[in-house]
């Protein structure tokens, strides 16, 4: 095995065998699992049913004519024409009563003049958001209907004023015009692009700083002098970057298998709960996506050309990681154990990553804007922005040009940072300035 291989192997194995790696790799999916379970229970437990007595002193709602407030999953209304709040109070918390809705006499001549309906709610418990919103929407809907009825306007006529607009995207290229493109595609693409962008953003920071800390450690405990009497500093730096990068890929590969499995397992275990939630979501007041929308989104998810997306993602991911981690390595080599100095330099390197992320957020909303185009060409930004754009099918020449520029810059930076690393790693005791680091680039061996 050659020396670079040995270094990569060590960097990789020592990390993968670490407890911290094993724990985070296993704990992250388990943490997600716990999060989902807790979320599901919270959402279902928040739907505790409440029985409410309705007292309408002024008979505004005209419930005595046989009309009823519509119950929903958690709230049931019981009209009590002759009851008084004082009497019912004592029954609160018993079997058939959780709260009292008291509608006082309103200060208006007719229902039509009513702008705000003031009601009072009596209960032993704090009024929760779900209950509050439930009561508000139920009564508001009811009053709206009542008003329409009173005004003599035909309800169907009123409904006919509402218009849904559906945009059906078509490809201008006549050859591709036949392809079915649904309007959901843009939402799905935004989500996919955003997810990839976020992942690369996180990776650059997490693994970049991992490289930096490892370099600092070698410098601080002085093993580096022994190592570079056997191998070139450049080999050591490269081996470290590749080894740590492989650790990242390993982690993703594990998650790529574990997460979908967990998700599917969850689906099976909590099938009932999901159904229940879905039925709740289908309640008329909520505007959650209906079943056909969900299937359309899933269909869209499958309609992407993943081979292209995955290849572009991996290429930009790797190039971006190498580009930034080489800079982090140079910082680590120059700064050693001077935490303060390395932090301020880390900040400088982080700025383009953060800017790229914000541009990326704008770019996925406007994937063909000139901002999106130019920022996806700029090598310090493109590792984050191009993967976000790729789901919107940018022209192939743009992808290739961006990749070419990125790889070129990447090689240049690895060379430059390698020069800084080589000198920095043997410097002790002196504070290093950025100017000095720049000078090291041109220093001979």
């Amino acid at each position: 095995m050659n020396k670079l291989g040995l270094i990569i192997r060590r960097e990789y194995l020592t990390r993968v065998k670490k407890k911290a790696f094993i724990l985070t790799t296993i704990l992250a999916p388990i943490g997600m699992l716990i999060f989902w379970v807790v979320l599901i229970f919270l959402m279902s437990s928040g739907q505790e049913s409440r029985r409410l007595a309705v007292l309408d002193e002024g008979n505004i709602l005209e419930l005595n004519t046989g009309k009823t407030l519509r119950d929903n999953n958690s709230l049931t209304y019981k009209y009590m024409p002759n009851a008084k709040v004082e009497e019912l109070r004592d029954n609160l918390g018993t079997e058939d009563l959780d709260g009292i809705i008291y509608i006082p006499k309103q200060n208006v001549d007719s229902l039509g003049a009513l702008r705000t309906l003031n009601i009072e709610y009596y209960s032993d418990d704090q009024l929760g958001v779900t209950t509050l919103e439930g009561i508000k929407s139920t009564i508001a809907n009811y009053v709206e209907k009542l008003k329409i009825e009173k005004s003599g306007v035909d309800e169907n006529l009123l409904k006919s004023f509402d218009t849904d607009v559906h945009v059906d995207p078509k490809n201008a290229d006549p050859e591709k015009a036949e392809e079915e493109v649904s309007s959901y595609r843009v939402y799905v693409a935004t989500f996919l692009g955003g997810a990839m962008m976020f992942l690369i953003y996180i990776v650059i920071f997490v693994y970049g700083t991992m490289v930096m800390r490892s370099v600092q450690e070698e410098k601080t405990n002085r093993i580096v002098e022994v190592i570079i009497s056997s191998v070139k500093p450049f080999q050591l730096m490269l081996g470290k970057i590749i080894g740590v990068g492989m650790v990242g890929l390993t982690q993703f590969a594990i998650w790529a298998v574990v997460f979908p499995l967990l998700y599917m397992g969850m689906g099976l275990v909590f099938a009932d709960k999901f159904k229940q939630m879905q039925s709740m979501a289908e309640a008329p007041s909520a505007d959650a996506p209906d079943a056909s929308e969900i299937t359309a989104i899933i269909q869209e998810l499958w309609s992407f050309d993943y081979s292209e997306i995955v290849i572009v993602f991996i290429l930009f991911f790797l190039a971006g990681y190498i580009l930034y981690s080489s800079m982090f390595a140079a910082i680590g080599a120059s700064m050693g154990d001077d935490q303060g100095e390395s932090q301020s330099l880390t900040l400088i390197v982080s700025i383009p990553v953060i800017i790229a992320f914000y541009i990326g957020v704008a770019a996925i909303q406007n994937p063909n804007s000139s901002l999106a185009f130019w920022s996806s060409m700029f090598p310090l930004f493109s590792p984050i922005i191009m993967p976000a754009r790729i789901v919107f099918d940018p022209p192939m020449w743009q992808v290739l040009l961006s990749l070419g520029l990125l790889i070129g810059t990447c090689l240049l930076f690895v060379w430059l940072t390698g020069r800084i690393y080589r000198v920095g790693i043997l410097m002790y005791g002196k504070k290093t300035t950025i100017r000095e680091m720049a000078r090291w680039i041109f220093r001979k061996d």
Partner: protein
Amino acid sequence: MNVLELQNVRKAYQNHVAVNDVSFNIPEGRIFGLLGPNGAGKTSLIRIITTITRADSGTVLFRGEKLNNTHPSQIGYMPEERGLYKKMKVGEEIVYLARLKGLSKKEAKVQLDYWLEKFGIEDWVNKKVEELSKGMQQKIQFITTVIHQPKLLILDEPFSGLDPVNTNLIRDEIDNLHKKGTTILFSTHRMEQVEQICEDMVLINNGKNVLNGSVKGVKDEFKENLFQISYAGELPVGFNEHVNLISNKKEKLVIQLNANQDSNSVLKYLLENGVQIQSFNEILPTLNEIFIKVVGGKSDE
């Protein structure tokens, strides 16, 4: 044959010249002392020899060949500031460093077993380096330096921070390797260590060669014909007219002879005059004294 030949080696950094026109040869199988005060350029010189950096000018020959990237595998280097990967297991770490020096996995394991057994520390194999005491770590460091059986062993201040037991242990190992024919470059600012251990030496100060030669030769060159005599009885009257008497305290005499006097005749003269001689020996200058004399007591320390 010379394991190492340096000719007019020069290395400058931005603000100063670290190595300035240094030349010396290290013959095969010798223990060679690289002497000099802190900041004299020893580490810069060693970094050139270990190919960590390159000389600006001058030539370095390793066993007759111009120094190149294949040579580090024949060099073992223990830097003054020692370090190991703290989180690695002892066995893995030694094998890793040995393989970086070009040993195969199999060879590395064989050598690992040999050395662990030699130091009686077989049960450390699976311990992490950070669990070991500092002295124990020094042993591991030494093993990693010599495991690939280097032709040239470079030890930079090998005894700094060692307790007497470990110092002796390492010294014995240096002796063993020396007997097996390993050439050793021993870098230190402790002159007395060179006197005890080294056969040849070079003294550098401010990046320049100051002295070069065998330790004995250097000392001979700087001896001042001083002799110390312990005696009992009375000195012959007028003795101090014949020789230059430096001191005479408590029947201990220090004299200096001039070029045409020899020690035998002095001894003979004293014996004939009834002085009882208990010891008679030449005072050779210590390297420390030589150093102070040569560089005028000025060092960067």
